[in-house]
C-alpha cells in the first residue's frame, strides 16, 4: 500500500500543479492566453445556458486593477451539436479599446486550430468592467459580461502539494481553499438554448487563440 502510494505520488508529481486548468502548460502558463477554467450551465432563465471562460488566474486584489484582457487573444467558445467533437458553432470574444466584442453563435469559417473573426455574424459588445463597477449588456436575446470576478474555483491545493511532496499523507478536514481571496478575468455569455442546438446534449469547450 505504501509502495503503491509512493509510486503514484512520484508518477503524478504534476498532478494538480494547479487546479482546474490554471497554468496547465508551459506555453501559456501565467500569460494572457492562459485559460484557468470553463463552465457551462443552465441559466436562471431555464430557456438559456451560460458559458464562462476565466483567464489569468490567481490575481491578488491589488493586482486586479492592472490585469487586462489582451487584444491579441481571441476567446472562442465551441459547441458541437452532432456528437463528432468538431465545433458546429462558435461564440467569439475579442477585446478592443475597453470593450469586449462578441460574434455569434455562428458556424466558423473553418474548424480547428486557426480562426478568423466572424464579423458578419451577430455582433454584440459590453464595456469591460472595472473591479468596482460591473457592467452587463443585453443584445439579440443574449447577455454579456467581461471583467474581473472572484475566482469561482475552490480546492485545497496547498495540502495537495504537501501530499505530493511527501509532507502529508492525506487531506485535512476541514481543508483550506487555496483560491480564496483571488480574482480572475471572466467572460460570461448567456444565450438562448435555441441558438446552440435547442435540445439534447451538446459538447462544449473553450479555446484561446493568439493573433499571428
Amino acid at each position, binding site marked *: 500500500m505504501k509502495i503503491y502510494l509512493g509510486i503514484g505520488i512520484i*508518477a503524478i508529481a504534476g498532478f*494538480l500543479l494547479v487546479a482546474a486548468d490554471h497554468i496547465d502548460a508551459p506555453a501559456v502558463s501565467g500569460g494572457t492566453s492562459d485559460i484557468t477554467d470553463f463552465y457551462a*450551465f443552465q441559466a436562471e432563465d431555464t430557456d438559456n445556458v*451560460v458559458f464562462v471562460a476565466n483567464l489569468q488566474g490567481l490575481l491578488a486584489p491589488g493586482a486586479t486593477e492592472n490585469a487586462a484582457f489582451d487584444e491579441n487573444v481571441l476567446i472562442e467558445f465551441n459547441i458541437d451539436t452532432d456528437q463528432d467533437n468538431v465545433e458546429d458553432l462558435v461564440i467569439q470574444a475579442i477585446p478592443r479599446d475597453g470593450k469586449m466584442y462578441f460574434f455569434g453563435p455562428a458556424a466558423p469559417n473553418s474548424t480547428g486550430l486557426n480562426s478568423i473573426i466572424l464579423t458578419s455574424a451577430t455582433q454584440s459588445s459590453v464595456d469591460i468592467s472595472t473591479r468596482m463597477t460591473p457592467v452587463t449588456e443585453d443584445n439579440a436575446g443574449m447577455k454579456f459580461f467581461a471583467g474581473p470576478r*472572484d475566482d469561482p474555483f475552490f*480546492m*485545497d491545493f496547498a495540502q495537495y502539494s504537501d501530499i505530493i511532496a511527501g509532507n502529508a499523507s492525506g487531506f485535512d478536514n476541514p481543508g483550506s481553499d487555496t483560491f480564496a481571496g483571488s480574482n480572475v478575468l471572466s467572460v460570461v455569455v448567456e444565450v438562448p438554448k435555441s441558438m446552440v442546438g435547442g435540445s439534447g*446534449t451538446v459538447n462544449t469547450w473553450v479555446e484561446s*487563440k493568439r493573433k499571428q
Partner: protein
Amino acid sequence: MKILNIKNTLTLIAIAALCFNCSNDDDFTPNTGGDGNNEPDFSGVYIQQDQMGRPAVNTVFVSSDSKNMFNTTIPSEQNADFQNMFQTNLEALSPAFANPGDMNALGQDAAAFTTLLATDVLNLSLDGTTTFYDGTNVLTGRALADDVITVELLLIFGGEDFSENPTLSNDNVDANDKPFLTSFPYLAAPW
C-alpha cells in the same frame, strides 16, 4: 476668415460631442463600413494556444512534456493521440486501476474512464439539470458550485463505491469562498 474659423471650431466641437456620445453608447451599432467610423480592426488569423473542456484534465492526465501538445490537439483527435497516455498515468496515480476488472463508481475500468476523459469536451444538457455530478446526474454540464475536484478525486481514488482511500478522495473544500449570484453574471464580485 474669422467667421470660417469659428464655424470650423463649432463643427469640430459638434463632431467631438457626437463622437463622445458614440463612445458611450450602450447600444453598440455595428458599422456597415465605408463611412469613416472607427470600427475596430478584427482582421487576421488567430492560432490556438490553450483549450479546456473538463476541469483539471490536462493538469492531471497529460505528461509534462505533452501539455502544450494537448492544448493544440483538436478534441476529435485527442482520443487517438492521448488515451494510452491517460491510462498509463491513471494507473500510476491510482494503482488499483491496473488490476483487471477494477472500476470507478461510474462502473468504468481504466480504459473506459480514460476514453471518456481523453476527449476533453464538457458535455452540456439543454434539457434540464446541468452539473458535473450531483449524486444523480453525471456530466450534464459544470455549474459554478459543483465540487469538481472532489468528484474527480473520488473517481480516481475512491474505488467502486467511493469508499477507498478516503484521505485522498476528498480535499474537504466543498464550496467557494464567496456565494455565487442567482442572476447574470453569476460569478461573485472580485476581491
